[in-house]
């Protein structure tokens, strides 16, 4: 036994054992249970353990599921696009325009020092009927009635999440910008390019990996986000995770909930892979 632990393979296994155990117990096992549940059915109080495709059939045909699914993906896509678009200039500034990189990186992580829930609630306070935004606009005399389109819709969800995810987008994009050899930019200038052309033909393609990383980090958890839509989304901001929560809670239909979870996972995986392929191809297309 001690002999085996001294070999390279033994050392590797020993070192990765805690993590493997953790992942095995807390990810793989629950996932297995989820898969099992998705093929069972709920009778009033008990679980019918005969294997059936019924739940999948229901998930595929129910218009509500399809509607919420599509909305979740669209909202997640919007959140991703807005966050990455806003994060890129900040990352660019930190990478190229300042010498106080550490200070700036520290500053952008400050939102994390307060709890996620607290931040979502803050947006509620800002965007609400009697919130900061409306009172400010009214006191400035710009509007007479409070604006109602600020809160409890998709817009509020996108805004809140874009703020929450910002550091997750800034960091990977910053790293990919930071990695660019400065002489590549000089070479592009030397070969006659203006700053804008240089950005499009050198900087942007070289930061595609950072953009992909940022997008996936944001898109994947957003599709399944449950807290933000329930707090600031209202009825038109509800997403598929809220439906899943209903299955596990009030509706007490765990098998359908399990099925929906797996369908969401598969859809997210599919969209993510499609996105990576498209973004990589786009990066290659620019010459």
């Amino acid at each position: 036994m001690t002999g085996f632990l001294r070999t390279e393979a033994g050392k590797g296994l020993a070192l990765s054992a805690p993590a493997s155990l953790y992942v095995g117990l807390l990810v793989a096992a629950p996932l297995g249970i989820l898969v099992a549940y998705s093929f069972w059915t709920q009778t009033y109080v008990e679980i019918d353990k005969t294997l059936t495709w019924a739940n999948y059939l229901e998930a595929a045909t129910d218009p509500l599921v399809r509607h919420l699914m599509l909305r979740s993906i669209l909202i997640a896509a919007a959140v991703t696009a807005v966050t990455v678009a806003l994060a890129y200039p900040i990352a660019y500034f930190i990478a190229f325009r300042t010498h106080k990189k550490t200070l700036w990186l520290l500053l952008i992580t400050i939102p994390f020092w307060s709890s996620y829930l607290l931040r979502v609630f803050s947006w509620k306070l800002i965007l609400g009927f009697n919130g900061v935004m409306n009172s400010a606009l009214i006191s400035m005399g710009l509007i007479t009635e409070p604006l109602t389109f600020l809160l409890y819709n998709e817009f509020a969800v996108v805004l809140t999440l874009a703020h929450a995810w910002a550091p997750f987008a800034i960091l990977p994009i910053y790293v990919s910008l930071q990695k660019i050899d400065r002489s590549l930019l000089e070479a592009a200038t030397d070969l006659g390019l203006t700053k804008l052309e240089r950005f499009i033909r050198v900087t942007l393609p070289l930061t595609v990996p950072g953009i992909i990383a940022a997008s996936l980090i944001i898109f994947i958890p957003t599709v399944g986000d449950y807290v933000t839509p329930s707090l600031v989304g209202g009825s038109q901001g509800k997403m598929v995770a809220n439906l899943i929560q209903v299955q596990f809670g009030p509706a007490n239909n765990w098998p359908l909930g399990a099925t929906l979870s797996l369908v969401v996972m598969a859809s997210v995986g599919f969209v993510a892979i499609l996105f990576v392929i498209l973004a990589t191809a786009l990066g290659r297309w620019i010459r």
Partner: protein
Amino acid sequence: MTTQNIIEISGVEKRFGTFTAVRDLNLTLKEGEFFSLLGPSGCGKTTALRMIAGFQDHDAGTICIGGQDMAHIPANKRPTNMVFQSYAIFPHLNVGDNVAFGLRKLKLGKAETDARVAEALEMVELGGLQSRKATELSGGQRQRVALARALVMRPKVLLLDEPLSALDKNLREAMQFEMRRLQQKLGITFVMVTHDQYEAMTMSDRIGVMFKGQLKQVDKPEVLYARPCSQEVAAFIGGMNFLDAAVTREVNGKLHADVQGFGPLSIDVNPNVARRGPQLLAGIRPEQLEISAQKPDGYDGYLQGTVTNAAFYGENVHYHVTAGGLPQPIAVSVPNYFHTVDHKQGDPVWLGVQNASVIDLGAREA
């Protein structure tokens, strides 16, 4: 044939804060010339090159390229192209797209772009490698791609920043000859920055030697080697023995001087030297000295000493010889004819030198 001046630099100065990187730079380069800026690291040679390229503004003076003042012309509009020290090959593009990078901006059409890329790659002996990935290239190939990418733009001046320093010795020597051949074939002015004296000497028509931001001497390699203008230039290019000498008289361009260790010798006046005084610094190249166990015939000056070090270098043998009254051992380099080291450590030897081998380096620097 009259050759035009392609680059005219006068009174150029560059400061970084309180540090003056380049001071009072004056230099005129002719069309089709291979010019090297040689100096130790931090001497301002790269800054000078970057000012010509337009990556750095100059604080004073003028830089003219092809008769046009470059003061307000940004790097991307200058008739120069550069080969970077790191080669700066775009990692996301293949070889063909790297070379075509600047051409695409000119919108020449696919046929002409492709033809010029093929021609440029052919020129650097990478013909047909258009679709090779940038990440799959060897060091030498990267250097060739960088060269092709710059030359395909047909610049008036090609700037090279330590172009060979990243290559191993054999490849570097092969590339020296190849770049020289290419430059002569194309007739483009090459301006190369290097800290390698041999590289500068083997490739260049003229060399400018820089120290501490100042251009000290501009000359052909042979002149630079035979008639360096000062002790620091002499020490930087090739090996050199420095000996104190007392000038007794000067007649018809000859200095009669009593050279430390070797006695009275007649030294040709070096026109490149500015500093004058009764105390002269004489220089003797190690390969210009004769070393022998017996007193050799036919020399103008002799020195008797003891071998303190003998080292076999392959193509030649290096000796260190000490003699009473000399502060430093004399370095001697002898071609290797018979694969033998003739003198061992501790052997008594004679050194012989001709008048013509002694270089006048002016008054000794403080």
